[in-house]
């Protein structure tokens, strides 16, 4: 199977080719570039599946393709100069992610035929070209074998999301949302860049895997008790890890850099599906998983990841409760779900985090494409209060959307339940040992209730009850290109949980935890990138309720399932009526706070206008007065002095001779006084 790896670069290069083709020939092609994109992503999917098969047969691909600079100065711990390379690393994690990304990208391309082409949009070649570039960047990011390459494609992903969010650049809101997304994620990426430089300077390598990976170097430095840049090794690893985490928080929309994501809904819904499920937002969490070995060396960094994740999960879920726009609800649910993944990774649940990343990719792509279908049905109306009663008029959309909603809410047996339950299980067993993590667990658990509530509020308002507008009475038809991706994703949302039925496996003592085995390198993988290896590095101890794994499993599952059902049940009671009302006035003052997203935007604007601007003004004033004053003062003193001094140049040779003589006499006098001639 090893020969398959020859084609590994093509996985990313095919969408790049589609980008070029759509950009250059898009206007002349029958579907304005969609065909190129569909073929390219289908090719990528096929090749990714081949990679998956090759990895399953026990092969791993790690090769440097291009070396564009080799330094001659040694790093802080490494003896050799740092090398900047482009390389491909295909191990179980990246092979899995390649399949997810290329699958979602393919389905989004197909869906776009119905969503963009059929609706007669302008600028389609540009749209498909940007989709191709987006897919290319994400795929290259996924199989990057070093941190610098990852950073470069991370930035490209950000650029593409900027372009696509601002696709309707003639409106007022889309360019502003695009700029916001770009700037907010750039703020996080700034820390990421500093982190990349710090890691490179410290360990003299940026490779994720291999003997000389920075993870291995960091572990060696930690074992050797070395001092790095004046800190002990663990502190320095924490600092650099947190710097990289800055980029993750920006991209994966974690608190406090989540504000760009709801605004990103200004882009086409297909783009939202791609951004939220597979490309942009997933990149952050994937990066944490990719360098999990590094974070495993630093308990403080992991704890911060866990708490940021847990807090974001709850925080975003509460905001989703009061939204009226179907896409806004989904946007906040995305933030919340990525919070779960961060929580899972932060409490050491590497498998759980990756599992949720996979399941979320399927059900969130499904929900967004479903929302896209609803928007087509509703003649481009997004307000849920104007929908209702679509259940019987669009059964395919309804049932697939319902599958995605059940997965999102974490209702057994849909995929979301299994992964969310695993994350919460990993959190509770850690929390029972070190109680501070119980707070993170509690936040994650509480968010389950809100998730159940807002998900079914959305479902009931959209599909149940009586139609509340003319558009809902007479929905627009949808074609096969819309239905097919929905069905594929709907099936995946239902069955993807089979990949890792951890509770069932543990209770019945069955060996059915395929994903855990997969990530543990049972089928093949690099030893230092396996779950078991990370598990040995993790500084965590766990405990169980009553010392019994079964009890703990059942209690954790019952709690999360109970809360999910009660949330969904509350939504059912409040909103599954023919003429639902808002009920938000019951929240009192909390309603305004939630509707304004906890005034996060206002806080950030205030930070910019109330803090940064005055500081910048003061700095500007200091620059204008003190610095410029000194410079201008020096110049005006010399100008004035020389305008006075130039008068001795009279143009009369006699005066010069007199000056010469006077100078000579003066010199003689000075020499005489100091030489003691007059004594």
């Amino acid at each position, binding site marked *: 199977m090893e020969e398959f790896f020859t084609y590994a670069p093509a996985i990313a290069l095919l969408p790049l080719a589609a980008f070029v083709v759509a950009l250059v020939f898009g206007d002349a092609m029958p579907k304005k570039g969609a065909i190129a994109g569909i073929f390219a992503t289908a090719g990528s999917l096929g090749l990714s599946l081949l990679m998956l098969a090759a990895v399953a047969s026990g092969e791993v691909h790690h090769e440097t393709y291009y070396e564009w600079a080799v330094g001659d100065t040694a790093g802080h711990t490494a003896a050799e100069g740092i090398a900047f390379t482009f390389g491909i690393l295909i191990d179980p994690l990246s092979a899995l992610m390649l399949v997810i990304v290329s699958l979602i990208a393919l389905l989004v391309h197909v869906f776009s035929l119905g969503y963009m082409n059929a609706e007669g949009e302008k600028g389609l070649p540009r749209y498909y070209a940007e989709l191709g570039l987006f897919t290319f960047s994400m795929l290259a990011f996924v199989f990057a074998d070093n941190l610098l390459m990852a950073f470069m494609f991370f930035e490209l992903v950000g650029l593409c999301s900027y372009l696509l969010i601002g696709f309707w650049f003639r409106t007022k809101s889309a360019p502003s949302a695009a700029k916001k997304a770009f700037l907010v994620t750039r703020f996080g990426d700034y820390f990421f860049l500093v982190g990349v430089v710090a890691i490179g300077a410290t360990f003299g390598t940026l490779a994720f895997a291999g003997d000389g990976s920075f993870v291995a170097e960091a572990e060696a430095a930690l074992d050797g008790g070395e001092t790095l840049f004046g800190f002990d090794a663990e502190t320095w690893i924490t600092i650099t890890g947190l710097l990289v985490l800055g980029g993750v928080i920006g991209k994966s929309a974690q608190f406090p850099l989540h504000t760009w994501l709801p605004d990103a809904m200004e882009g086409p819904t297909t783009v939202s599906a791609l951004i939220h499920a597979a490309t942009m937002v997933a990149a952050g969490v994937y990066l944490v998983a990719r360098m999990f070995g590094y974070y495993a060396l630093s308990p403080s960094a992991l704890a911060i990841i866990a708490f940021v994740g847990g807090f974001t999960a709850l925080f975003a879920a509460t905001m989703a409760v009061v939204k009226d726009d179907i896409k806004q609800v989904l946007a906040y649910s995305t933030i919340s779900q990525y919070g779960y993944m961060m929580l899972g990774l932060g409490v050491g649940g590497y498998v759980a985090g990756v599992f949720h990343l996979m399941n979320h990719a399927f059900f969130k792509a499904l929900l967004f494409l479903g929302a896209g279908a609803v928007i087509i049905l509703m003649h481009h109306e997004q307000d849920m209060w104007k929908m209702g009663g679509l259940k019987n008029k669009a059964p395919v959309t309804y049932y697939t959307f319902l599958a995605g909603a059940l997965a999102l809410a974490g209702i057994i047996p849909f995929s979301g339940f299994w992964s969310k339950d695993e994350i919460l299980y990993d959190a509770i067993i850690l929390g029972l040992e070190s109680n501070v993590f119980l707070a993170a667990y509690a936040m994650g658990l509480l968010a389950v209730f809100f998730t159940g509530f807002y998900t079914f509020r959305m479902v009931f308002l959209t599909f149940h009850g009586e139609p509340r507008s003319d558009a809902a009475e007479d929905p627009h038809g949808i074609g096969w290109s819309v239905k097919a991706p929905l069905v594929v994703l709907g099936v995946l949302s239902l069955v993807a949980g089979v990949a890792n039925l951890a509770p069932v496996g543990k209770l019945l003592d069955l060996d059915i935890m395929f994903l855990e085995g997969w990530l543990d390198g049972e089928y093949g993988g690099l030893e230092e990138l396996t779950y078991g290896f990370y598990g040995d590095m993790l500084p965590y101890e766990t405990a169980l309720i009553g010392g019994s794994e079964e009890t703990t499993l059942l209690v954790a599952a019952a709690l999360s399932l109970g809360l999910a059902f009660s949330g969904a049940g509350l939504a059912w009671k409040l909103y599954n009526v023919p003429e639902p009302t808002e009920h938000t006035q019951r929240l009192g003052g909390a309603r305004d706070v939630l509707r304004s997203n906890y005034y996060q935007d206002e806080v950030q604007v205030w930070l910019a206008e109330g803090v940064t601007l005055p500081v910048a003004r003061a700095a500007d004033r200091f620059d204008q007065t003190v610095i410029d004053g000194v410079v201008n003062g020096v110049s005006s003193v010399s100008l004035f002095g020389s305008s006075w001094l*130039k008068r001795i*140049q*009279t*143009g*009369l*040779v*006699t005066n010069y*001779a*007199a000056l010469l*003589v006077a100078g000579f006499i003066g010199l003689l006098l000075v020499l005489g006084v100091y030489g003691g001639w007059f004594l």
Partner: protein
Amino acid sequence: MIGIEHYIVLSMALFCIGLFGVLTRRNALMFLMSVELMLNAANINLVAFAFYHGNITGQIFALFTIALAAAEVAIGLGIILVLYRNFRDVDVTVPSQMRW
């Protein structure tokens, strides 16, 4: 017996006369003559010390200086001629444009 000091006094006197001329006169020709006086004061010094030390080098330097002085006079007279052509005058205080 005439000692070295007599020659030095003579050369100093000659030099000071030349310097006085340069500092006080305005006529370019007088300038040139004063410069010649100062040059010759130096020549006297050179010859006197050469004789005093019994070393011929100083006398050879003096010969060189005389040759250079001849050249200098030629150039100097040329400059004075040009000066006269341009300003109808040989007063050195008239052409004072060569400054800021």
